């Protein structure tokens, strides 16, 4: 397949997303996606300066609500906020606030009383960010909700792919693993199909959700079939904590059937890139030789996460009114 560059993007007259929140890729437009990716290019440049900080969000308050464990995403948002000079506060709760006797909505309303401009929320329940967004006037950014979506992950993945391949349209992307429990997969399928990439989903039948083919993705059960001829191979984390363990008999068998080994990697295009949203189960869904190999862009994904989240925050709360 030949690489077709995306048409040159004219300097967008739009400096904000079409909605007040970023809840899911399903609910935003192709233009929104392009705007985030283009804006992230300039943010990436900031991250390479000696002094990696701009005053763009000075005086803005961002609250990070992490109700579920997270290292990468949380650090990534916090760094993004600091580089844009936003004030940021963090609330982390193990378990839900319900366990402490306060509802999510009450936590949100109390926080709102302190007038944040944006709330970044990670939560174990699908739709939790939507609940906040419906009741609070500030911008709500979904940093991963249950088994629903992880929109900034899909945006940073798209950014990484676009940087490596020059385009998204026309690419062949294989997304492999525990699709049922993967919010990363849902966001990525939605984004990539919107942008014209051809997506193949692959996993054991027990870990593919019903009617998933209606996303427009090709669905297969053999990893070899998915990887063959792919430009991008994205491996998903096996999520035993979400019940993925019922879908296959053992780690050993999973690796045999669905692990991305160097041999299977060879079925993809020569210049294919290998991605993983992390954290990895080495030796289960991916072999270390591939994860740490020359085609792996796994650490670039992490690096790009900061730029993409800077872009999202800027477009949601920094872009209205005055110029940079």
């Amino acid at each position, binding site marked *: 397949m030949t690489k077709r560059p995306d048409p040159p993007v004219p300097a967008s007259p739009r400096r904000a997303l079409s909605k007040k929140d970023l809840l899911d890729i*399903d609910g935003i437009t192709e233009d929104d996606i392009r705007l985030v990716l283009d804006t992230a290019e300039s943010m990436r440049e900031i991250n390479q300066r000696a002094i990696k900080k701009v005053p763009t969000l000075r005086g803005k308050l961002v609250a990070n609500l992490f109700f579920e464990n997270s290292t990468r995403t949380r650090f990534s948002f916090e760094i993004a906020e600091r580089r844009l000079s936003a004030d940021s506060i963090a609330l982390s709760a193990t378990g*839900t606030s*319900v366990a402490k006797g306060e*509802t*999510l*909505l009450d936590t949100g309303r109390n926080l709102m009383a302190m007038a944040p401009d944006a709330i970044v929320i990670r*939560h174990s*329940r*699908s*739709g*939790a960010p*939507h*609940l906040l967004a*419906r009741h609070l006037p500030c911008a709500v950014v979904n940093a991963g*909700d*249950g*088994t*629903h*979506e992880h929109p900034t992950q899909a945006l940073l993945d798209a950014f990484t792919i676009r940087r490596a391949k020059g385009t998204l349209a026309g690419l062949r992307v294989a997304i492999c693993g525990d699709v049922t429990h993967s*919010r990363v997969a*849902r966001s990525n399928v939605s984004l990539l199909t919107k942008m014209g990439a051809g997506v193949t989903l692959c996993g054991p039948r027990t870990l593919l*959700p*019903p*009617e*998933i083919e*209606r996303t427009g993705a090709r669905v297969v059960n053999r990893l070899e079939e998915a990887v063959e001829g792919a430009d991008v191979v994205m491996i998903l984390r096996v999520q035993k904590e979400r019940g993925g363990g019922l879908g296959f008999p053992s780690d050993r068998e999973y690796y045999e059937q669905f692990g991305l080994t160097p041999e299977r990697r060879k079925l993809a295009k020569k210049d294919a890139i290998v991605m993983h949203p992390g954290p990895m189960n080495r030796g289960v869904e991916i072999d270390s030789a591939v994860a740490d190999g020359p085609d792996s862009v796994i650490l670039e994904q992490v690096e790009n996460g900061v730029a993409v989240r800077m872009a999202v925050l800027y477009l949601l709360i920094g872009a209205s009114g005055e110029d940079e």
Partner: protein
Amino acid sequence: MSGEAVLLRGGRVVDPSRNLDQTLDVLLKDGVVAKVDEKIAAKGAEIVDAAGFVVAPGFVDLHTHLREPGFEYKETIATGTRAAAAGGFTSVCAMANTDPVPDDAPTVAFVVRRARETGAVRVFPIGAVSKGLKGVELAEIGSMKVEGIVAISDDGKPVANGNLMRRALEYASMFGLPVVVHEEEPSLVGAGVMNEGWASTRLGLAGWPNVGESAMVARDVQLAGLTGARLHVAHVSTRESLETIRAARKLGVPVTCEVTPHHLLLTDEDVARSGYDTRFKMNPPLRAEADRAALVTALVEGTIDCVATDHAPHHEDEKNVEFADAPFGVIGLETALPALVDGLLVPRTITLLRLVEVLSTAPARVFGLPYGTLAEGAAADVVLFSTSKSTPVTPDGFQSRSKNSPWLARTLKGRVERTWVGGREVFSRSSGTPR
């Protein structure tokens, strides 16, 4: 009951118990339907101009959660029966998942007494199948029958143990009581909070498949066949359950079933469209369009005997949480008629005669209640409603203590105007509920 006479003049009288649908006068006197005829003269009677309205036997709900005792912050017998009256229901059957559970004579007697003291309409208690709804030992079904239960059910929970269900059917049959079953196979339902399908896949919510219901329906119709006992399947939601019930009927198994207005008119796509709105979360869940269409067909042609609301009030605070954490259930008494007029009668999917039948005559027959008819001498339980006027569904418009309705913010064609129980007016749209 009131002795004052009421003459409903010139309404479209729809009485499925006699296959009647014509413009007539109806005289209510001494608590009964005294006369149904053309041009009745009744000196001293209150005259109600019913021209342009439908006059029908009061609706009968086989599946109502009144929440008292134990959950009075959600609903009480007083508020729940006021909601019933406002929806045209003159009889409601109170489900057993209260606290304490009605599983012996005194707990049933409490409901009967509270209904007598505070109820706006007739209340018929449903006793538990098992003590404390625990699914282990049979409740005291015989003593509860003496206090007035009309059926037994562990509704809200399935009776997972097949042998207990068999014994419940056998035991209840001695008292002529139907066993009402809430069908879900626990290991297939798991943590499911909505229908399994394309919508649950997109929303990332745990779904449960149709077979979670129909597998239990299959078990229970066969147990009904084995025991010869009366089985009533609550809130059928899947096409496979319907097929199973049809097949059982062909074999002569005494099984009846009900469907809710929301399962007839909404699907899992409404859950998706709502953006995780818990007013669309109930059990069984809203199913796929193919199921919804099959339910409508089955209701029209008779495989489904009747409509029941599964009126399930929950406090706003309980519902205003993450979708997976919210309790199951929606209120339905006050929206049943408008929802069905709007969704089935206006598009001419169902006839007015059949619509009234599935709301009054048929449910009364299923539980053997002497209502659902305007036959002369029958109790004067009557509803007057319009099929052309509209009901705007607003949070402030409910008589119910709760507001968890999937119809909020909708304006539905069809409106209940007045309701009488035993000849006494219990609801009037113009003056609110008198009691």
